[in-house]
């Protein structure tokens, strides 16, 4: 039953990614050229509403439906991992024009070539796992 719920929510997410064009290479390229408000509007309004929602749920001390605490793990403190990791991620985002959500959406659309991006992303994750202890965090 829960699986169906997750599948349903995931499907909605995929439709949002595709229909809002956040999954389009062209929109990412346009964003990094500051040539349209579109992507900034998507992220800005998502964060603004998300922030209000999360702060409201926290203030009211709401629990998740199953009675557990809300899944809001604070991120560990630090700078280098976020900045360096972020820059590396951004280079890839700019190059492939896809981030880890839309990748799966585009695979579902039928783009065979996105499977190379996904394979690369899995490989990159694997390399991080191998090198993790040698990297500044």
């Amino acid at each position, binding site marked *: 039953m829960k699986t169906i719920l997750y599948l349903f929510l995931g499907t909605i997410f995929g439709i*949002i990614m595709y229909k809002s064009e956040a999954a389009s290479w062209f929109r990412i390229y346009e964003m990094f050229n500051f040539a349209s408000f579109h992507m900034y509007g998507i992220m800005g*309004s998502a964060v603004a509403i998300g922030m209000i929602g999360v702060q409201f749920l926290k203030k009211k001390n709401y629990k998740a439906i199953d009675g557990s605490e809300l899944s809001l793990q604070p991120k560990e403190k630090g700078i280098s991992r976020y900045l360096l990791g972020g820059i590396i991620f951004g280079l890839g985002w700019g190059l492939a024009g896809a981030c880890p959500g839309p990748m799966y959406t585009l695979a*579902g659309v039928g783009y065979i070539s996105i499977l190379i991006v996904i394979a690369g992303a899995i490989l990159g*994750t694997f390399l991080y*796992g191998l090198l993790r202890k040698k990297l500044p965090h």
Partner: protein
Amino acid sequence: MNWILEPWPWYIGGPAIAIFMLSLLIIGKQFGMSSNLRSLCSIGGGGKVADFFNFDWKAQRWNLTIMIGAAIGGFIAANYLSDNTVQINESLLPQLQEYGINSVGEAYLPTEIFALENLNLKNILILLGGGLLVGFGARYAGGCTSGHGISGLSNLQLPSLIAIVGFFIGGLVMVHLFYPLIF
């Protein structure tokens, strides 16, 4: 029924993402898509070579299910809800043409990079390299556009803000410094 094929403006897409993230929160989960890449490494036996992949990926099955849903959503949207073209600011066309990309307004992704018939060594390297950087960077930074960009910022996490500054530094460097060298 043409309106159904129209792309969504930002003020539909953005709030829809927020509602999706909040729905996950209410059912006890946290929105973050790149964690799935770690689970996939773990399923593939990565735990044998790196501790990082020795974790209970089965607890992440819900997220893998979301991932499969995201692919189904793409299939539905592309086949029934879209004309599969993307219009962007026309002032970018000359630059894109210089890069050999002429499919603006005719496709959802540039066919010059993503179409199967154009899959040459250069494109394979672009796609593989881009994916590699995304995967490595997302795990190094501990999240991607969803985990940091939406979940983290909504929860007022300073590390997420630092990561997003990084995302943009990286993206701007790629598009403005490296694109002229690559394309």
